[in-house]
């Protein structure tokens, strides 16, 4: 019993992180059709920021999360202004925005990843934080994983509530449903676009910071998370934040149980298999009506 609980919990814990990364990517894609393939690189930046601040100044990593979010948000505004604004305004069709932003994303990926290689080298970095075990219902967990899981779920739920019950959230959802319609009812898309893009990167940064508390970090850690986030938003549906949350948990569980019943080296095959199967069977997402 304790073993199955541990397995399910480990799937849900990974899934919680996936959800945060995926909601960030989904905000960017659902809103502006920007396929930001460099999303994981900003996650990696968040992880390095947290690691750097924690090891240099000894600050509690959880206290750093708002700062990391703010830093990545500001970076997001700059990146949007320099790279994506021009694409969004000059491209003749939605498809063209997708293709061009994908290529610009690859450019950003090379740029950010190798800048970090230059700055900190290829070594794995890490610190230990809250590693003492906690026992719940016969299952043993590391305290940091539980804390990270709690934080990830709280952040996702807070964002969902923000989208659901505030005016700002309403405006964002309106833009997801119909960009032109949103403009007609007086939503200022020119201010909202960079803000939402920045919020997406802030979520990536927070996810990276959370990951740095649990795993070792390296400049190439981001890429797999981009792919995972793509899988999750395909599972949950483009433009649906709730779908991303559920999709994240589903993928986490599929990976945990799949690896247990087959072999750990099949992890990537499992995730890609899920992606391909979902795209073939339900291209609009599992929860689409």
């Amino acid at each position, binding site marked *: 019993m304790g073993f199955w609980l541990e397995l399910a919990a480990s799937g849900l814990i990974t899934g919680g992180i996936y959800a945060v990364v995926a909601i960030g990517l989904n905000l960017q894609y659902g809103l502006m059709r920007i396929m930001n393939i460099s999303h994981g690189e900003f996650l990696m930046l968040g992880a390095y920021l947290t690691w750097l601040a924690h090891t240099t100044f000894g600050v509690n990593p959880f206290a750093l999360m708002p700062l990391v979010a703010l830093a990545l948000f500001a970076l997001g505004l700059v990146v949007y202004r320099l790279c994506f604004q021009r694409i969004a305004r000059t491209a003749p069709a939605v498809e*063209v925005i997708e293709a061009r932003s994908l290529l610009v994303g690859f450019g950003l990926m*090379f740029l950010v990843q190798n*800048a970090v290689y230059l700055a900190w080298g290829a070594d794995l970095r890490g610190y230990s934080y809250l590693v003492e075990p906690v026992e719940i219902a016969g299952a043993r967990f590391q305290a940091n994983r539980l804390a990270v899981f709690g934080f990830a779920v709280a952040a996702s739920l807070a964002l969902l509530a923000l989208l659901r019950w505030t005016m700002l959230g309403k405006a964002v959802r309106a833009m997801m449903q119909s960009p032109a319609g949103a403009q007609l009812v007086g939503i200022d898309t020119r201010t909202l676009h960079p803000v939402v893009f920045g919020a997406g990167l802030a979520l990536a940064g927070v996810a990276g910071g959370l990951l740095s508390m649990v795993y070792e970090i390296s400049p190439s850690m981001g890429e797999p998370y981009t792919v995972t986030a793509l899988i999750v938003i395909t599972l949950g549906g483009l433009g649906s934040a709730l779908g991303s949350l559920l999709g994240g948990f589903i993928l986490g569980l599929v990976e945990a149980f799949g690896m247990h019943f087959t072999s750990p080296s099949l992890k990537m095959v499992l995730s890609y298999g899920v992606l391909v199967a979902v795209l073939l069977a339900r*291209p609009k997402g599992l929860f689409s009506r």
Partner: protein
Amino acid sequence: MKTTREQLLATLACGVVLAAAPWLLSDFLLALALSCLMYAALALSWAMFCGPTNYLSLATSAFFGLGAYVTAWSLGTLPYGAAVLAGGLAGSAFAALIGAGVLHLRGAYFAVITFGLGELALHSITYTEKTYFHTAGRIIGDPPENAVIYWTVLALALAAAATAILVRSSRLGTALRGIGSDEERAQTLGVATRRVKVLAFSASAFFPGALGAAMAVRWTYIEPLSVFNPFIGFQTVLIAMLGGAQTLLGPIVSAVFFTLVSEFLRLRFPYVFLILLGLLLIVLILYLPGGLASLLQRRFWRAGAR
């Protein structure tokens, strides 16, 4: 505009001149020429399908890796030439299979799923090799001479150029351009869009497959990560878009330029090279989305209008 026949003759003439390279160039320069030819052929074959249709395929490295593994598995039983042909056919077959399944998706979906399928092939081969053959990579014994490899890759590059020329001037090319500008309209006008797309996608995948098979012997030791390297796919897309995917000469010129620059920078400053590559990609997409060829064309049009 030159006629198809003139373009084909020009390709043939280039081929005759380039075939003399193994007698004239040093080993280092021959290796450089080999990479130029390989990327020119990859970019040409990518642009053959993706240029006119506006699809963004990231599966090139999957076809390439598959071809390389065909050589790794069969060299020793098959002669080199047959392995190259088999590699190409493997690429085509894989492309036909995935094309039939995913070519109805467009835009970012298509790009993501072709990338995902490439990674799926990579991880599946890694797993198969590990579980059933207990190896991480394979040593390729008894590789053919450098000149033979060069001539094979040259022949593939010429074939890619000739195919690209023929496709452009044929009904298939017109159908592909029709699909690129408006798929529903093309369908209404009687183009069997699905069949045309699968056919062209699979034909264009012959070249990366065959090139992978031909180049595999250069490495002596191959492992899935080195031959399925997604970077090969990105670089192909980048070269084709940089040169102008709608044109014939664009991808060739930018392949030569790009290979020379990367050979000299990559070994000396690996990180700086990739940072510059990223910057170049961003600037080009933002300010020159039609590729370098669009610069020339714009000037040409302006001169013609006067």
